[in-house]
């Protein structure tokens, strides 16, 4: 016997598949919930390439690694070239200047919490920044600041603003942000 030849999902069919709640039902304890706020701790060993990258950031420098085969200067540095699938070669210092490849103007934080833009809080302006001296298209994610968000544009020239040497700790945040060159 041939079966199953009339299958249309209808309101009636799906009606009882889900009990839709509201956020308030949870916060007002109208439904019983179990809650947990994890506080997990990790220590990430960053490998030879990123460890050197971080150490150089502490020195106020950006370092990349070259692949002789595809002739790319790779940033962040890596121990092997993922395109050629072979060990990478020389360490090379690159500039702390670059060009905005793309960006956005964010009114939310990492938890999707709203910033008080009306109250004068500056939006976050993250960008992909192509670093001078690395191969074209080699960008890093960082923040732009000291610029009116309306003036940010793709292709804009920017320079790193570093933390004072004594405050640097070997982190991408040793660069506080990038700002337009000439500002």
């Amino acid at each position, binding site marked *: 016997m041939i079966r199953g030849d009339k*299958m*249309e999902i209808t309101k009636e069919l799906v009606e009882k598949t889900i009990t*839709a709640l509201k*956020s308030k039902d949870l916060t007002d304890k109208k439904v019983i919930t179990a809650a947990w706020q994890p506080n997990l701790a990790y220590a990430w060993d960053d490998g030879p390439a990123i460890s050197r990258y971080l150490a150089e950031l502490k020195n106020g420098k950006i370092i990349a690694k070259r692949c002789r085969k595809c002739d790319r200067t*790779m940033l962040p540095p890596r121990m092997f070239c993922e395109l050629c699938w072979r060990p990478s070669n020389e360490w090379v210092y690159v500039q702390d200047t670059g060009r905005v490849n793309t*960006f956005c103007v*964010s009114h939310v934080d990492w938890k999707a919490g709203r910033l008080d833009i009306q109250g004068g809080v500056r939006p976050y302006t993250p960008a992909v920044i192509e670093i001078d001296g690395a191969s074209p298209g080699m960008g890093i994610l960082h923040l732009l600041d000291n610029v009116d*968000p309306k003036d940010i544009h793709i292709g804009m020239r920017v320079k790193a603003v570093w933390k004072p040497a004594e405050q640097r700790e070997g982190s*991408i945040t040793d660069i506080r942000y990038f700002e337009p060159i000439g500002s």
Partner: protein
Amino acid sequence: MGYRRVAVVGAGITKFTRFAKETNGELSYEAARMALDSCEMNLSQIDCVSIGTAPDAFDGFHLNGETLAEGSGGFNKPVMRNYVGGGTGVMSAIHGWQHVASGMFDTCLVIAEEKMSSAFPHPAGAFLTIFDHTTEQPVMPTLLWIFAIEMQRFMHAHGYTKEDIAKVAVKNKRNALDHPCAQLGAEITVDDVLNSEIMAHPVNRLDVSPTSDGAVALVFAAEHVARRVTEKPVWMDGVGWALDTAYWCTRDLYYPDYVEVAAKKAYEMAGIKEPAKEIHIAEPYDPFTYKELHHLEGLQLAPRGGSVQMLLDGVTQRDGNLPVCPSGGLLGVGNPIAAAGLMKVAEIFWQLRGEAGKRQVPGNPTCGLAQAWGDLMQVGTVVVMRT
């Protein structure tokens, strides 16, 4: 080719909603039960189970896939769980195909489930951990940033405007009004999109799909079983998937190479030479408005830089030459991550069988495509289906 022909023979779906009272397992059960009922099969006829569910971080406990086994009918059966971010739902269908095509199993129950609401009050924070822990997390990125950054590059490369891209939201939310499971079906205007809250410019609130809970299930069968079960099997004629590098800042985000690679593999397998002509209906992944257009270009269904013109010309409307997201997509039906991808495969199943009700596209389509995307702007998963 050394594999067997595989058909989809049944489908089931729960409603999509922001907060479901039901557990992950209960959601899976509802969808799986409906899928088996739709083809009048029972669990004893199912040889194996393919489960897709996204990061355990949403759920707050590990082994989420494993705990879904009971609800998915997988107890004491061969079960495989996969996770490739937003690409998971379509990857689950590809896994289902692999299980049966290999000859190892005659049937496979494919289930994709997501319950994002357990991360309370909002799951956005869980996405911080998808970024590189050392080189990116310290600047506290959010998922919205990466989309807004990509959209900006896409608009810049092709000269697209927010006004034009907003029409994707208008279309998809309207289509979703006809979907009985939809969370956000609505009649809205371009101005509504442009005037909605700015999340991360150029992304406004109505450019974004919601967070959702829900589940979808499909029944896959080898040809000899499929022909006994139904007169209207829908064949999985092409599958393809690809993963690009995680160094997302070193790729030009204006174009999804990984979607092109995945699509070309699926087209080659299905014998498709001119996708834009041979595919009648498409469900590309649309978690954000621009993503539908971005993916149409990657899928070779629109020329690079030509997807907006197709949208403006009405080609992608439900009654256009290439209906795109006739279900209402993630923007309209909702986005329970893994389930959203499989919802797209289910929609092609219903459309090709002429069972899509008010959503039915005209012209008796015989070839459809579903695609999902995920990870760090990184993975493409594609299936091509035919009657």
